[in-house]
């Protein structure tokens, strides 16, 4: 149905307050009697704890308490799993070694907490940390993925026979047959590096226990208030209703804030209750790098079976995935890599297998893209390698193999992070690819512009890549829509916001259903006091799942309003309309009743109600899809490489994206811009580096480089396509992570194209000027 608001680029309702500084972030919150926490963290990546001497720290004036694992007793045990184990995947094996809230007897990564200090101020707490003396017996650190699985490697978890945390093998068709059928089998090895989420706002938590009301209030910029509430209640032996989790305005999530059983979540809630005083903890940037989760390194061994004309017969991808010292997030990231390898192309035979490996490094959980980009990287790089060997252009080989527009629904036979078989619901890849080629002016560049510039000695190059993005996965989300006595509407949901414009997009959906001004719809997210059900903000599922739940709830309210108004206005429902904040007879607009009055009439103070009727104009709805909706698109990139410094400048990028119905096109563009920035970081700037002793040597923005506004492409053109998803009434697909997914693939291809006379080929997803230089020298020397 054509709405006044959905599909419009409404300015964001939350912006006036944000821009004028009238909002409250976590660190703005001050409570009377509040104490502060600081963590003493391990300097060693792998060591036995012989003893911890906290006596001097306890004596420091202003210190309320210093606690180690011993002081907590039985409360210290491995935390809960953040996602269920992959029992749905046949033959999958795994072990669960979940996060320890504080190190007990042994530290397994540099930065693991060994003690916590509670003091009157953060300064005193940190000074006290300096007075804690830990006697370590250093052990050899496990850092190399492949060496970690060899017999004789030191063990991260000594009760296990090896460092293998899990193994999954999935196959569609038969790889063996594919090899027989193929004219050529191409083999490559790829290295995928590790990245941080690096949100502008660091993690933090404030906990307050009211011992009279027996009520705990937690403020935290978490991506899942429900999980944090439930896990906290379970740990402390409370009802879920005794714990309220509120998200203040949050400065970015990007994945790491989905964790709800990291040391601070577990220890500070306990201590706030025990000490009967509110406690605040906010991490500093170094702690964020060291001890907030980051995402993956992987080593891939790939083989592509093709025919001489470029048709893909099969793909085999075998890889190792680093999960860090603990694996509370099980296999979500590598499963995403598996499910996104062949989703754009016709690959009749596909074998994918991975081993998850424990190492003495920080725990791995999703960061924007969550592993999808590496499946895409593998496929795009293999296509490029095949194109080289077959003498085809990158465009030709992709065109040959893209899934046609009539292939949907397409059953992939590969089970993903939602534990059901991935089904591509809708899309049109050939058209989005074609649109990208037009927007980047591919033919003109390759035939005219590039030769001219190369003759002048300029190393310019172009790349194109296709990608897909699984979004909107289950299990479910819910929303409540309530019309107030003032005629304005409140929407509450368990979903959380870190800047995705939910306050605007959800309002747009409701305003369309109830005929009110979008500014009269107030959205409350991420507060368990208002709404207590939901899974959390991850996997680009907000607008698809929570947005659809909001839509369904608003529809129910609309039905209630029509039914009640029909009685009051004495007109049949079909003749009524909701517009301008009233319900009225469409042909006789003077016969109306305002929504506010209707809401009041729906809640009589005396008298009787019809049996079965519900009071008020309010409804709750839940929505859970059978599988995720797949967004997709393509990207084209023109770059220039400085022949001496190997610095790469991004000249032009064309990004075409299909997210089904865009509720707010401006917001969609914003999500894509943000994703592109993170993708550029992934491709050229960001890299978390651990040395051979497991020391993180890039723990500040001096060393962990971040693309800035000046590093974005000089020209950025966005193209949109809409193939509505059949899975939900509005036809929506997610878009949160799209921008980040194809950038490493297209970047590497463009640099290779710019330096094609050297014959250089990159096997990594992150380049840098010095790396490009080294690879070029090797290619020349070879």
């Amino acid at each position, binding site marked *: 149905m054509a709405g006044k608001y959905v599909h419009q680029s409404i300015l964001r309702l939350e912006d006036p307050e944000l821009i004028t500084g009238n909002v409250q972030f976590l660190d703005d919150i001050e409570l009377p009697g509040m104490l502060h926490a600081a963590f003493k963290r391990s300097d060693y990546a792998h060591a036995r704890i012989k003893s911890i001497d906290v006596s001097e720290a306890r004596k420091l004036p202003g210190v309320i308490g210093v606690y180690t694992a011993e002081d907590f007793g039985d409360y210290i045990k491995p935390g809960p799993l953040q996602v269920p184990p992959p029992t749905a995947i046949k033959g999958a094996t795994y072990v669960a070694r979940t996060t320890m809230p504080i190190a007990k007897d042994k530290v397994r990564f540099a930065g693991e907490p060994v003690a916590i200090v509670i003091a009157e101020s953060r300064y005193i707490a940190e000074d006290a940390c300096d007075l804690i003396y830990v006697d370590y017996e250093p052990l050899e650190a496990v850092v190399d993925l492949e060496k970690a699985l060899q017999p004789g490697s030191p063990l991260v978890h000594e009760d296990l026979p090896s460092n293998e945390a899990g193994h999954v093998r999935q196959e569609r068709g038969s790889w063996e047959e594919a090899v027989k059928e193929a004219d050529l089998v191409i083999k490559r090895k790829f290295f995928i590096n590790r990245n941080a989420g690096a949100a502008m706002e660091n993690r933090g938590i404030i906990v307050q226990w009211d011992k009279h009301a027996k009520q705990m209030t937690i403020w935290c910029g978490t991506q899942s208030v429900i999980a944090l509430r439930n896990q906290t209640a379970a740990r402390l032996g409370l009802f879920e209703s005794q714990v309220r989790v509120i998200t203040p305005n949050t400065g970015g999530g990007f994945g790491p804030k989905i964790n709800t059983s990291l040391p601070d979540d577990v220890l500070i809630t306990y201590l706030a209750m025990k000490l009967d005083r509110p406690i605040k903890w906010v991490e500093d940037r170094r702690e964020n790098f060291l001890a907030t989760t980051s995402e993956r390194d992987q080593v891939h061994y790939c083989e592509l079976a093709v025919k001489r004309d470029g048709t893909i017969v099969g793909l085999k991808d075998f890889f190792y995935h680093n999960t860090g010292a603990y694996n509370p997030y099980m296999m979500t990231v590598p499963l995403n890599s598996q499910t996104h390898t062949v989703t754009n192309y016709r690959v009749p035979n596909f074998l994918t297998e991975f081993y998850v490996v424990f190492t003495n490094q920080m725990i791995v959980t999703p960061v924007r893209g969550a592993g999808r980009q590496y499946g895409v990287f593998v496929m795009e790089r293999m296509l490029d390698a095949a194109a080289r060997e077959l003498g085809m252009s990158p465009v030709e080989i992709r065109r040959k193999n893209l899934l046609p527009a009539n292939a949907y629904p397409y059953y992939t036979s590969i089970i993903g992070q939602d534990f059901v078989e991935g089904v591509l619901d809708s899309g049109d890849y050939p058209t989005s690819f074609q649109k990208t080629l037009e927007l980047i002016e591919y033919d003109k560049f390759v035939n005219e512009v590039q030769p001219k510039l190369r003759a002048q000695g300029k190393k310019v190059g172009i790349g194109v890549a296709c990608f897909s993005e699984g979004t909107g996965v289950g299990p479910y989300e819910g929303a409540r829509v309530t019309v107030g006595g003032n005629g304005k509407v409140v929407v509450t949901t368990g979903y959380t916001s870190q800047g995705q414009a939910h306050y605007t997009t959800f309002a747009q959906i409701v305003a369309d259903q109830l005929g009110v001004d979008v500014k009269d719809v107030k959205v409350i997210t991420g507060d368990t006091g208002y709404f207590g059900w939901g899974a959390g903000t991850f996997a680009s599922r907000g607008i698809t799942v929570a947005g659809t739940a909001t839509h369904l709830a608003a529809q129910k309210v609309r039905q209630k309003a029509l039914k009640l108004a029909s009685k009051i206005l004495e007109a049949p429902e079909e003749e009524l309309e909701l517009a301008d904040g009233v319900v009225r007879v469409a042909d006789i607009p003077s016969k109306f009743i305002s929504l506010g009055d209707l809401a009041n009439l729906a809640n009589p103070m005396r008298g009787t109600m019809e049996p079965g009727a519900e009071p008020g104009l309010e409804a709750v709805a839940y929505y859970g899809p059978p599988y995720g909706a797949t967004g997709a698109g393509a990207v084209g990139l023109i770059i220039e490489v400085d022949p001496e410094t190997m610095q790469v400048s991004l000249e032009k990028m064309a990004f075409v994206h299909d997210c089904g119905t865009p509720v707010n096109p401006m917001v969609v563009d914003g999500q894509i811009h943000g994703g592109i920035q993170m993708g550029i970081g992934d491709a050229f700037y960001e890299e978390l580096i651990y040395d051979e002793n497991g*020391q993180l040597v890039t723990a500040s923005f001096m060393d962990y480089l971040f693309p800035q506004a000046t590093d974005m492409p000089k020209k950025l053109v966005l193209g949109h396509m809409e193939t509505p998803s059949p899975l939900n009434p509005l036809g929506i697909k997610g878009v949160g992570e799209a921008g980040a997914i194809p950038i490493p693939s297209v970047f590497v291809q463009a640099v290779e194209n710019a330096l094609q006379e050297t014959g250089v080929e990159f096997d990594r997803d992150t380049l840098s000027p010095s790396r490009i230089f080294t690879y070029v020298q090797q290619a020349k020397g070879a």
Partner: protein
Amino acid sequence: MKLEGEHVFNGPREAVWEMFYDPEVLASALPGTQKLEMVAENEYEGAMNVRIGPVSGSFTGKLVISDVVEPESCTLTVDGRGTPGFAKGVGRVQFIDQGDGTTLMKYEGEMNIGGALASVGQRMIDSVAKTMIRQAFEVLDKALEARLAAKASGSEVVDFKPPSETEFAAAVAKDMAGGLTKIPEVRLLMYIIPLVAVLVLLAVLFRGCSG
């Protein structure tokens, strides 16, 4: 991280060797050292203040001298821990008589660094270590001079004042900045800043004039 290099001392090998074995001299060579005392034959314990970039704090540690071949060579093993992290290292030191009254000292070793020093100080560790070593040699040169002078004049008192912690830090900073002015961007800044100052001055003057 690897450390290696060499230095020529203006003195006979025996004098250089003796100087190295004097904990007072060693302690003074690296100001910031709070104490360095012998606890057993060839074993020292000490405490030292360290600052690398934004990271600072105090270290306690052990220094063990082994494989002693007097006065030719020895192996130094260092194990230090403190609030900024930890540092472990092994180094081999050689003293070679050049035959002309001078001694060539060669050293090579490996350091493993962890904690805040490694995670935040990474890009500075290399250069700070090199300048600290260079400064330390300058101090040792002066100390050697004083000892030889004392010997020559037959006096017992060695007239040598090691630099204070601040003096040392200033020398290290100057040393590093000295390298800095070789960088073109920094050179450019050194021209631009006075230029800007002149422009500002002119602007102020003109505004003053235009009544």
